C-alpha cells in the first residue's frame, strides 16, 4: 500500500508525515509523535479515552484515519498547558481530586475543554451530558463534574 502525505498542525506545530492509509490518528499521535497522553482503551469508540480535538471538535482518535484529517489542527492533552502553566481544567482536576487511576483523564479533559470552548458557563446538566461521552471505570464522575463546574465558575 502506498503511504499518504499528510500535513497536520499538532499542538501549534506544523508536521508533515508519510502515513499508512490504514493508520488511525491515535496511532500517529502515540507512535510517530510520541504524544502518549491520548490512551487506547476499547479501540472501538465506546470509551472516549483517546479523545483529542480536531479543529476544536472532540473526536475519538481511534476511529479516525490520519489521512481523513489532512490539513487539520489537532490539540492533544500535551498541548493544553501554556509553557509551564497548567490549563485551568488540568489544575481543577488536580485540586478536586478528579483523578483516580488517571486513564480516562486526558479524554475527560479534552471533552470538557470542547464544552467550555463553546459554552463558557454550562449548567451542571450540560456538563453531565457532555462528560457522559467518556467512561471512567473508577466511576469517579462526581469529582470530574465538580472540577469542570469549578472552571466554569471561575472563568471570566
Amino acid at each position, binding site marked *: 500500500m502506498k503511504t499518504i502525505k499528510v500535513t497536520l498542525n499538532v499542538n501549534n506545530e506544523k508536521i508533515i508525515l508519510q502515513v499508512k492509509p490504514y493508520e488511525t490518528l491515535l496511532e500517529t499521535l502515540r507512535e510517530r509523535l510520541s504524544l502518549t497522553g491520548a490512551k487506547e482503551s476499547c479501540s472501538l469508540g465506546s470509551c472516549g479515552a483517546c479523545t483529542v480535538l480536531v479543529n476544536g471538535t472532540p*473526536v475519538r482518535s481511534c476511529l479516525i*484515519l490520519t489521512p481523513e484529517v489532512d490539513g487539520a489542527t489537532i490539540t492533544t492533552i500535551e498541548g493544553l498547558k501554556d509553557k509551564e502553566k497548567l490549563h485551568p481544567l488540568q489544575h481543577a482536576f488536580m485540586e478536586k481530586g478528579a483523578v483516580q487511576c488517571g486513564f480516562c483523564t486526558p479524554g475527560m479533559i479534552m471533552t470538557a475543554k470542547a464544552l467550555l470552548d463553546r459554552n463558557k458557563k454550562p449548567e451542571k446538566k450540560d456538563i453531565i451530558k457532555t462528560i457522559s461521552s467518556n*467512561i471512567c471505570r473508577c466511576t469517579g464522575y462526581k469529582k470530574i463534574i465538580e472540577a469542570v463546574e469549578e472552571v466554569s465558575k471561575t472563568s471570566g
Partner: protein
Amino acid sequence: MILPKFDYKKARTVEEAQELYNKYNGNAVYLAGGTDLVPLIKLRLFQPQVVIDLKGIDELTGVRKTNNSLVIGPNTTLFELKQHPFIKDYLPCLFESLEATSCETLQMRGTIGGNILQNTRCLQYNKSLEWRTARGFCLKMGGSVCNVAPNSKSCFSNYCGDNAPSLMTLDAKAKLVGPKGERTVRLEKLFSDDGRAPFSIKPGEILKEIILPFKKTKGVYEKLTVRGSIDYPLVGVAVTVKNNDAKVAVTGIGPSPRLYELKEIDEKSINDVADWACEDAKPVSNAVLTPSYRKKMVGVLIKRAFKKIASGGSR
C-alpha cells in the same frame, strides 16, 4: 486494535466516488463519519481493498428548506442536525432520537446517512475474528447456521439505528444515486428485512438526500438501554402525531424497523397498536437484556410515548 491493510481515497464528487468503487470492482466501502464502519473493519467484519471517503463531497452536506420539504444531506453530522432550528420545533420525534443517539462526541462525528445505514448488530456477530472463528461463523458471516437460534435459516441480528424509525414516522424519503441514475424511495424501502444484508441498496449506490415533508408535528422517541449514554437501543419506539393520525416505528428488534399507522388516536387504538407491535416483535437472545423483557417493553414504550405526547412533554 490494528486495522487491516486497505487503501484510502478521498472523493470530491459522487461520480468520482462511484468511479473509484468500480475501479476496485466493488471491493470497497464508503466512509462518512466512520463511527460504525471503523469498528467493523477493526473486528475484521469488513475487509475492503479500499475505503472511499465521502466527506469531501460538498453536495452531501447541509440542511435546506424547499417549499414544503426539508432536504437533509446525509453527511450532516447528528450534532449539527440536532441544532438546526427547524428540527426541535417542527420534528420533535427526530430531535429526540438525535439526542438519544450514542453520546455528544460521537454525534459530532457520526452522520445522519451513516446512522441510517449502520449495520445490524448481534452479540454473536460484533466480536473479534478470533472469537468468531472459535465459535464458528454464523449466517451473517457466511456460515450455515445462526449461532443464536441454531434451527433458523434467517438472521436475527438487530437494526440498532435510533434515527431511521423517527424519520420513517415523519414520512421520509431517501434519494439514492447509482450507476443507473437517481431513484427516490420511501425510507422503509431501504430495509431488506434480511439481517445478512440489511439494506436493499444496489452495489455502488450512494445515499444523496433525505427528504422530509416540512410540517409541524408532535412526537417523542422512547429508548430502552442499560446505560444512559453511548448504548444502542435494546428497544426504540418513535411516535409522530400529525393532525388526528399517528405513525409508530419500532427499532432494536430484528433486522429492520417496523412501521405502524393509527387512523385514530384513542385509548383503544393505542392499546391495539401496542399489542400488535408487541406480538410482531420476535426478539432472540442476542442482546444484553432477555428477549421476553424486550418484547414486553415494546408495548410499554408505545403506551408511554403516547402518554407523553398527550401531556405535551418530552424527554
